[in-house]
């Protein structure tokens, strides 16, 4: 079974739209409404995601905190993170948290799929 993608965004409509786009493109998708839920998903799912698509500004636990805590666990450290932010300094944020890349909201379907394909972890042999 191929590794899923994890979409973390507090806006339900947006998260579902993202999941839909990614499923249409053939991915398995998991969703989380904030950083804490995302950590819970990592803990409970048997297969680790190939990529985390991460919003920054979220209630309960924001993107930056989630990124830090994820990196503290050896098994999770190498999961690629694609920062997906509405902030003008998305690139800076991505660099600071050691994300593989960033996408600035709003974004086109094509750009989103291209970025996800480029940065997700390769399937294990």
């Amino acid at each position, binding site marked *: 079974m191929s590794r899923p993608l994890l979409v973390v965004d507090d*806006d339900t*409509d*947006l998260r579902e*739209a*993202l999941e*839909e*786009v990614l499923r*249409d493109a053939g991915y398995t998708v998991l969703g989380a409404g904030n950083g804490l839920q995302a950590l819970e998903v990592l803990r409970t799912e048997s297969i680790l995601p190939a990529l985390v698509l991460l919003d920054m*500004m979220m209630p309960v636990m924001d993107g930056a905190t989630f990124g830090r805590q994820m990196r503290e666990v050896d098994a999770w450290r190498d999961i690629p993170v694609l920062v997906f932010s*509405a*902030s*003008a*300094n998305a*690139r*800076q944020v991505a660099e600071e948290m050691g994300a593989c890349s960033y996408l*600035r*909201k*709003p*974004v*086109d*379907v*094509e750009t*989103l799929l291209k970025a996800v394909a480029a940065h997700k972890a390769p399937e294990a042999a």
Partner: protein
Amino acid sequence: MTPFRLLLVEDSVNDAALVTAELEQAGYLPTARRVDSLEALREALAAEAWDLVLCDYRLPRFTALDVLALLHAHGQDVPLIVLSSQLSEEQAVTLMKAGARDCFSKDRMARLGPAVARELEETRVRRERARAEVDRDILARASELLTASLEQAARLDQLVQLMVPRVADWCAFFLQDPDQGGLRLVALAHPDAERRAHAWKLDQRFPLDPQSAAGPAHVLRTGQPEFMPDVRKRPEPITRDAAHQRAIEGLGLRSVVNVPLPGNEGRLGVLSMGTLGERLLSPVDLALAQELARRTGLVLENARLFQEAREAVRLRDEFLTVAAHELRTPLTTLRLQLGTLLQRSEAHHLEPDVVTRLERSVRQVRRLGTLVEGLLDVSQLSSGELSLMPERFDLEELVAEVLERFQAEARAAGCELRQSPRRGLWGTWDRLRVDQAVAALISNALKFGPGRPVEVDVGRQGGFARIQVRDRGIGVPVDQVERIFERFGRAVSSHSYGGLGLGLYLARRAAEAHGGRAWAEPATGEGARFTLELPLEKETRE
């Protein structure tokens, strides 16, 4: 009758009376004091300010030379005239060399009147000049302090030190308390540590009564300067509170000047200064205090405005961050949903009508996105430069991407988009900003040149990369080629062509932030040509 303060060094009461009579005859009204010992002289000099000293040459235990030495040691600028029954030419020369202004025999008293007149006048001019010098010096130092980058408290503290002891014995700033509204002592210069502590304590114990009929609070209320040449001669006490009055008297005030610190909206505080003991303040001191207060008020006001502006900018930036998040999130959802629907309708070969409608919606959502970005950028730009995040990329590839994005819109406008052959043009720029700038030029060309081809030429010119967008539309009148790059600037009526008038403005600001330029020229023939020029080498500013 001209009044003046005369100090007579004379052991003979008769001679003293003679001098006074002679002076009265000459039209003077001297307030005279006679001393006949060096101790009495020393005490008289310390206690009061004198306009003239008349001195007998030889007294029982000292001579006029001793008097001159004492005057000199005391540092007071008081002219001395020596009167004598017998005076050799040699003695006269010695006296003049020692600093006597004049000397003549007591039997030639007729000379006294003109000599006094001359000395008083010369002293007055000399003192005025010296005083003007002091004022100039104090104000120059004050200006230096006021423009120095100091904390406000340190600045006021040094300002009051300037006035003491040269102009006054003590000097203080009271500022309006922003929270409680009353006046608070914020800086004080006073030679006596104990009295200084007393004054600070007094400010704590007796906050200035806003309704008082005199003093700093009164000046703050009325805005009128207050000058009490001599507190001891005031018919009424400064306050009706007996304990407070005793406390004030404990300060030993003599002359007091209170002047308001003017601000744009009302007064910011009060500059207060005064003397202790025998020294008195004059209208000249009042004028100096007013000038110092005026300059200080100006600087404090500017500091306050700067603080307010900084706070406003902070709030604005905070708002922009939130607004950006709030606006971009639904736009993202809309764009993704429409994109999915479009893909599916194409895949399932739905009616062409549905596809067209979805395409139209996608275009409008994208346009909404551009408008939102433009507005956010403009409000951010109103307080400074665009911040750049440079990265290395191929400009021709970026232009091709932008053109690709505009295909649907170009079709709708009936324009053919043509790009010059691509050879690769690499440089280090902010990808997002350049993308926005190119998009603004294309969007502009499609809007004003519908139905005609739009040519985009990317090339190299000296040390610059150049993107030229040529349309065949309505063109730009020569007198409008600059205006259209202004914020909200447009060459045509907003009734005939929509848009916020921000695209070209932002394009130019983006080019300038890179160290480049953006401009328009009415092309030969019809239409217009817009150029975006970006430096190729490392002139890109962070």
